[in-house]
């Protein structure tokens, strides 16, 4: 395990920049998540850390050891690939054993077997150990791929890289493994870098995370910091489940008037309101709107409401029923609203 530093890392594919001046320091033993949409550069970052791809510019440093020019074989990283990358002609057990048998990693057969059964148990793939990858379903393959990375934790691995390792599992397993991964990582105390486009997953496991948009780092912080202080509208637009409502404040509108009245920053061009930070009622006051659609989700329901400035998603209790087309009033908790300037950068608000 070690600290991982990315120093002004840039990667071009032809003319296309995939990573643009990425600068971040991942702490020793940290569970660090790279959060971004597909194509943001998450996999590229991991591949550059692993040494599979060479950066066009910049440096990768493990501890105080610069890694540029050192091949992946000698970086001692463990990695789970988004596309699984299993070895097709050897069994699941042999796939899991493969990284343990590399030259220079003298791990005895008993220890190897112990690790394989432990990881197989964790990922529920014990009955599959004698199968070939071609005989597995997509979710099973993904678990084997994850297992091949986890089997090495605690063997002096400098960093574990997980590229969307549970994206293709069913909801039950995904939810359960999320917690298990976190537990496993803390127990083994390995520096882990985890790429995910999924908000819930990313914010649930991370010690800290980095928001990557179009190859640029837009924000680095703890999940709480990012939730309470999203750096700009792009970041704010990616977080929350459902995501934060971002509404334009044009000067003459009712929304802008009310926002000012409740202490909005004079330069604010956009207001961000969490779906849980607004109430709906049928009395007077608030922002007038029209119910667009209702999604009942058990105890809660998501109500989409058309208001001046955009369409909001509001989380309410299911006990209240709303009909599409019905006029409704939205009461935001203004004291918790986030304000962003004309360039999208955060300028205030968002008290807890």
């Amino acid at each position, binding site marked *: 395990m070690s600290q991982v530093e990315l120093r002004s890392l840039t990667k071009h594919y032809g003319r296309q920049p995939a990573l643009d001046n990425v600068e971040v320091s991942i702490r020793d033993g940290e569970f660090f998540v790279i959060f971004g949409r597909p194509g943001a550069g998450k996999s590229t970052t991991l*591949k550059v850390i*692993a*040494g*599979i791809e060479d950066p066009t510019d910049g440096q990768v440093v493990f501890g105080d050891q610069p890694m540029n020019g050192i*091949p*992946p*074989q*000698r*970086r*001692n*990283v*463990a*990695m789970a*690939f988004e*596309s*699984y*990358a*299993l*070895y*097709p*002609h*050897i*069994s*699941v*057990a*042999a796939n899991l*054993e*493969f*990284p343990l*048998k*590399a*030259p*220079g*990693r003298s791990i005895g057969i008993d220890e190897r*077997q112990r690790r*394989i*059964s432990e990881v197989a148990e964790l990922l529920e793939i014990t009955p599959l*150990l*004698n*199968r*070939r990858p071609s005989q597995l379903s997509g979710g099973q393959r993904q678990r084997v791929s994850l297992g*091949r990375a986890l089997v090495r934790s605690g063997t002096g691995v400098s960093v574990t890289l997980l590229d969307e390792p549970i994206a293709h599992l069913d909801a039950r397993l995904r939810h359960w493994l999320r917690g298990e991964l976190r537990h496993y990582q803390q127990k083994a105390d390995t520096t882990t870098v985890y790429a995910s486009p999924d908000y819930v997953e990313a914010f649930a496991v991370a010690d800290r995370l980095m928001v990557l948009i179009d190859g640029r780092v837009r924000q680095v912080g703890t999940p709480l910091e990012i939730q309470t202080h999203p750096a700009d509208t792009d970041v704010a637009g990616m977080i929350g489940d459902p995501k934060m409502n971002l509404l334009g404040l044009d000067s003459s509108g009712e929304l802008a008037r009310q926002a000012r009245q409740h202490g909005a920053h004079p330069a604010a061009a956009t207001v961000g309101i969490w779906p849980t930070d607004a109430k709906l009622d049928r009395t007077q006051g608030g922002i007038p709107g029209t119910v667009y659609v209702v999604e009942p989700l058990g105890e809660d329901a998501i109500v989409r409401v058309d208001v001046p400035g955009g369409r909001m998603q509001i989380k309410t209790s299911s006990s209240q029923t709303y009909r599409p087309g019905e006029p409704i009033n939205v009461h935001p908790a203004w004291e918790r609203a986030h304000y962003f300037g004309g360039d999208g950068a955060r300028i205030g608000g968002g008290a807890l």
Partner: protein
Amino acid sequence: MKYLLIAPPLAFFFAISLIPLVYTVWLSLTSTNIAGGGGWVGFDNYARLLADTFFRQAYGNTVLFVVIGVAAQYVLGLALALAVHSLTRGQRLVRLAILLPLMIAPLIVGFIWQTLLDSRYGPVNGLLRAVGIDPVAWLTDSSFAFISILIVDAWQWTPFVFLVLYAGLRTLPTEPFEAARVDGASGWRTFADITFPMLIPASIAAILLRAIEAFKLFDIVFYITGGGPGGATGTVSLLGYFTALRSGNMGYGAAMTVVLLLTVIAIALTSLLILQRALSRPDLSGEQAFARRQSRTREVEHG
């Protein structure tokens, strides 16, 4: 009407393949000579073949050419394909250079190599002499003549094996190789556990096609040694040609080619059967690993 539409290719197939084949089989059961004489002899020709030392030598030579030649070409072709595939630049040029021999007609190849290997005036011996090695009787000594044919055949056909395997390599997914690098695998293990197994389908195609072709080896031998010295490099197709068309013993020559055909069919079928079985068998190493694990757990449970 629909039969009319497939009539041309069908007629072509009959004219080119089926009629000559049936005719050859029929010929092999007669004592027909090139002047038109002779009659039905049943399996006499085949009985004669068994005892014919010339035929047995040619048959042995053919089998050796196939086994040694194709094995050597496969190993060389695979090595070349791996080497070229790993080049970071200049792949296109090297590929072209390697493929050149394939584009030359076999008779020309024979001519080129006969010149190169000529004992007295050939450049190969010239080079050997220049570095102080005694000249070698490439085409007149029976062992060296045999080796020379192997070399020339390999020179012309290794590029074919290379082409098939290189194309196979290019279609392999890149991720398992990236994973292997991250997993710290040595070059040898990557090759043995990943590259080679993934290349098996392409290897089967290359070896089978080459083996079938090599059984019919004719042109290179015909031009370079004519089967000599003393039949040391004669092949079945060469002997069949001499017997049927030079000596005019059509029936007997036909019997030789029929034996050749049956051999090729038998080998192709057996190898396909073996491969099918090998590929459908569950992975043994995985099963063993699992069994070992199971017994280990039992030991722990029973103290």
